[in-house]
């Protein structure tokens, strides 16, 4: 060690002038491996024994449990090997480690709900280079780093449905607020965008969106945020929470507070979690697609792709077990179907 003087480190070469800026690199980073260059063969049989791994945003989330539960059913149907991994916190970096692990374990399909559309990209592309088919569900990653996206419903459809419910509950006019998950959750933001467009229409001119709060999909944070909304906006009529954690927390807060009956809660929720609040009158109606179907569809899409039935190109068709036939839309999107509205009348028919 004595003779080894510290080596001068050139950290990163500094260019003398005109460095690399965001605008100078715009559009350069979209190059993605074209792993789906091959031809689709619609008649290829579904392979058996496919290793299909689910990587949700985080474990220990009831919604996630239902989603991946549907996935397990589908994987069993096609005689594949089901696997579930995931972080305990909804962070992008820990998802990356899991993707890396799945690459090492040579899975055939990774079904992932991305915590950050960009952070998981390099790893997902590495997976695709290794021949793994990447299906995103629930929350999409960048288009350039996945093969297909299972969209629970069209963004437009959900946004419209949320505004429609809010308008009905508010009686057509008044203040409404949104309690979302994290501010960079892709799906949440696109729904909120649609909501804003809808609210700008003359028919909804008397509805006023006063605030978008973020509960980070954490129960306690969402609970506190709901509290804050009601304190800050005394005239608030409706809280719209397009996330299952948020709507449950908000309902629980309102049901035990003096706001019960004065403020309506709606949004996207799980019937099992919401049953109590629907029955005690805190919540009149809310909506959701069947999350189990998302996981189910992801398995079939992944299997179809792995078997060569589809490549992810627009217009290709495949059959997803009990759900029937699906067609791949633009940018590799596969839309599950319209959401269901739940009310006191029909809620007991659902168990998830």
């Amino acid at each position: 060690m004595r003779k080894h003087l510290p080596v001068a480190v050139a950290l990163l070469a500094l260019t003398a002038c005109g460095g690399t800026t965001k605008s100078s690199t715009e559009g350069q980073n979209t190059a993605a491996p074209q792993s789906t260059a091959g031809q689709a063969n619609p008649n290829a049989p579904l392979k058996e024994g496919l290793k299909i791994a689910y990587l949700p945003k985080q474990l220990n989330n009831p919604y996630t449990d239902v989603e991946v539960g549907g996935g397990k059913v589908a994987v069993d149907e096609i005689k594949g090997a089901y696997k579930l991994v995931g972080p305990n916190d909804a962070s992008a970096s820990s998802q990356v480690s899991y993707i890396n692990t799945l690459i090492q374990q040579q899975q055939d399909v990774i079904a992932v709900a991305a915590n950050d559309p960009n952070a998981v990209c390099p790893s997902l592309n590495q997976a695709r280079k290794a021949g793994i088919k990447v299906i995103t569900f629930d929350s999409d990653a960048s288009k350039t780093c996945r093969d297909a996206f299972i969209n629970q419903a069209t963004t437009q459809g959900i946004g419209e449905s949320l505004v429609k419910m809010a308008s009905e509950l508010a009686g057509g006019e008044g203040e409404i607020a949104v309690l979302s998950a994290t501010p960079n959750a892709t799906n949440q933001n696109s729904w909120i965008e649609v909501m804003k467009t809808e609210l700008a229409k003359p028919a909804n001119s008397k509805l006023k969106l006063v605030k978008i709060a973020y509960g980070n999909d954490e129960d306690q944070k969402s609970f506190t945020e709901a509290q804050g909304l009601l304190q800050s906006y005394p005239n608030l009529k409706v809280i719209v929470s397009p996330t299952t954690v948020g709507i449950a927390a908000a309902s629980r807060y309102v049901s035990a507070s003096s706001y019960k009956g004065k403020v309506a809660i709606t949004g996207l929720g799980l019937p099992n979690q919401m049953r109590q609040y629907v029955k005690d009158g805190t919540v009149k109606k809310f909506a959701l697609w069947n999350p189990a179907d998302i996981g189910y569809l992801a398995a079939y899409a992944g299997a179809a792709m792995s078997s060569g039935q589809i490549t992810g190109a627009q217009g290709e068709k495949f059959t997803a077990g009990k759900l029937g036939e699906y067609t791949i839309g633009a940018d590799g999107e596969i839309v599950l179907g319209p959401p269901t509205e739940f009310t006191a009348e029909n809620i007991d028919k659902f168990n998830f």
Partner: protein
Amino acid sequence: MSAEQLTETRIGRLANWNVAIIAITAVVLVIAAASVNSFGTAQNFGFLVLDLLPIALVALPMTLVIVTGEIDLSVASTLGLSSAVMGYLWNANQPIETIIPVCLLLGAVLGAINGFFVTVLGLPSLAVTIGTLALYRGLAFVVLGDGAVADFPAVYTDWVTGTIAGTPIPNVLIVLVVLAVIFGVILHATPIGRAVFAVGASEQAARFAGIRPGRLKFWLYVASGTIAGLAGVLWTLRYSSARADNGAGLELAVVAAVLLGGVSIFGGKGALPGVIAGVVLLGSLQNALRLSDVSNEALNVVTGVLLIASVLGPNLIRRRT
């Protein structure tokens, strides 16, 4: 510095744990390579290095800080703020060649703030850095909010995730090795290192030997902040995503790794090779357990038990003799 050299110089009892942890790490690596499928692959090696890089980097100056008897719990928040500022400036269309030095400088300033409170005002470092832990993380959120900034230039992100051409050695490993050698040499083979140990063993006695503990600690905090800033840059480039919550909670893993590496929380004792072994041990255990489909939770328990055992074990042995 090799294990033999250490035993040769015989840094008292400390050497025992240092050698032990290196041996344990080696054994774990061998067992993992033999029994866990694809643990030993080149690609997995790359992933392993990338996963433990931030902890390893931050642990280097942290080792020196803890040897002086202080602690810096704000490192992960410094990393986060560095990442957030990097995203902010990138969005503001600044060239990345400017942003990276700015982030390192920012880290240095954040470290200097810690150093100021600890050495000039003489406040307990535990309390100060818990305060700045919250402060810096909070500022990161203020700068970037909950959003993420992506689209960093591929040249840079590819370099961070890439390997040296034609080898399975990740590029970032060079950065890590160079810095580890620098910090190792400083700690174990320079007058500064001697002063670090002296201050940790007894600040008063060190002053009586002509050392200025305050100034030394101040610069160690600056070093700690700068490296945390660098870790923030590398983290951002690796995930190509600048976020305010990057690296949250990392400080505990770093402190755990450093203590596991045989550094005394009371200061005055420790060696860098042990710390590196501690980092590698934690990282490879995590990696191997994950590959074996053992849940993350098991690792939490293992980390905690190892941490306590690393201090308890030598204590019990000493008591018996």
